[in-house]
């Protein structure tokens, strides 16, 4: 029989990606992706707040013993347009995690690791009802969560590039991001690279007129994620790291003042190393309001 205590490294290593995955499943600006970022502008002096709920389920079986992890993350995102090109963002997750391995179970809840980052627009090409934007971003993940339970305990940095092509009929967002993770308390999560693309197509109304004040979008997003292996006490963990490919279909309702969306993140490819726990699906829903 395999015995894993509640403080086991096996829990710690397998759990955090499920929580942290949601932290970047946040688009912080004016338009529409569900689990990707966008380069569309946040006006100077404008504040945008997004509340997102991410529910993730993962399960498998090791040696005939079932393993389940369910996490529920509530992410509060606040964005502020310092100028029309430079926007600052903060993400504060509150996380609840229920874990069960055979007869052993544990639950944790509390603050997760917060994010602070900045995005700067370096390219813009505007035409009537169309735009192309490119914006790099960089930030830090702060160890505000409980080490090994709702957070990693390390101060990590990340950065990347977002490109957005938008018209009144459709929007295409694509983001490349790399996470440089550092060690804390003998544990170092492997670095990771993420390529995410979101396509949003206006389903309603068929025609845009003067008094059109709401769009309904169909959303399809694809996300490729590569994780390097973790290290515990300087030793590489063979049951960590690997590759994920997700597809996220969803719907979005965008008005002049607020946007609501709902999506389901489904794994197309789950190629993690060893016995690393592989997520089954995530449900994402959010509402964002600009002020």
């Amino acid at each position, binding site marked *: 029989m395999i015995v894993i205590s509640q403080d086991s490294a096996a829990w710690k290593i397998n759990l955090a990606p499920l929580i942290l995955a949601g932290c970047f499943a946040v688009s912080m600006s*004016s*338009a*529409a992706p569900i689990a990707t970022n966008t380069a*569309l*502008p*946040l*006006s*100077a*002096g*404008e504040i945008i707040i997004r509340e997102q709920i991410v529910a993730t389920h993962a399960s498998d079986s090791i040696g005939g013993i079932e393993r389940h992890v369910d996490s529920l993350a509530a992410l509060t995102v606040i964005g502020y*347009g310092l*100028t*029309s*090109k430079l926007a600052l963002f903060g993400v504060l997750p509150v996380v609840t995690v229920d874990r069960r391995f055979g007869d052993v179970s544990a639950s944790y809840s509390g603050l997760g690791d917060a994010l602070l980052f900045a995005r700067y*627009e370096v390219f*813009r090409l*505007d*035409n*009537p*009802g*169309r*735009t192309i934007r490119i914006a790099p971003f960089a930030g830090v993940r702060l160890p505000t969560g409980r080490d090994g339970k709702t957070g990693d305990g390390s101060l990590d940095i990340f950065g990347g590039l977002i490109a957005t092509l*938008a*018209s*009144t009929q459709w*929007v295409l967002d694509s983001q490349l991001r790399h996470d440089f993770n550092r060690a804390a308390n003998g544990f170092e999560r492997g670095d990771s690279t993420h390529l995410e693309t979101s396509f949003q197509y206006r389903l309603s109304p068929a*025609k*845009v*007129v*003067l*008094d*059109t*004040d*709401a*769009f309904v979008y169909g959303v399809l997003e694809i996300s490729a994620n590569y994780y390097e292996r973790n290290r515990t006490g300087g030793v590489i963990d063979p049951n960590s790291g690997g590759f994920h490919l997700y597809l996220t279909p969803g719907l979005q309702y*965008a*008005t*002049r*003042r*607020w*946007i609501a969306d709902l999506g389901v993140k489904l794994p197309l490819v789950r190629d993690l190393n060893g016995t690393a726990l592989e997520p089954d699906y995530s449900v994402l829903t959010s509402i964002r309001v*600009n002020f």
Partner: protein
Amino acid sequence: MKALILILLASAFASPILAEDVQYDIRVDGITCPFCVATSERALKKIEGVHTVGANLETGVIFVCADSQVNFTNAQLKQLFLDKGFTYRSFEKTPGCSIADHADTND
């Protein structure tokens, strides 16, 4: 007394003519969704004398109905839309206000 009544009547009819609205058709590039245009509309509505603001997203034109005393300049509008993250191109000013006439211009 008759003269005074005539003057008062003339003033009553003359006032609406003096205060006739004007319409600005402002071409702004890069606006693609209702959420995007909302902040620009709010900024325009804060300007004293502006009554109504609407937008045709397909053509990239924002319509502003305002008192005739309102006089936009290219520099003012360029800065306003720059702050909102969009590209101001030009405006046309016409007497009267006919925003509703533009409702179906994008066929």
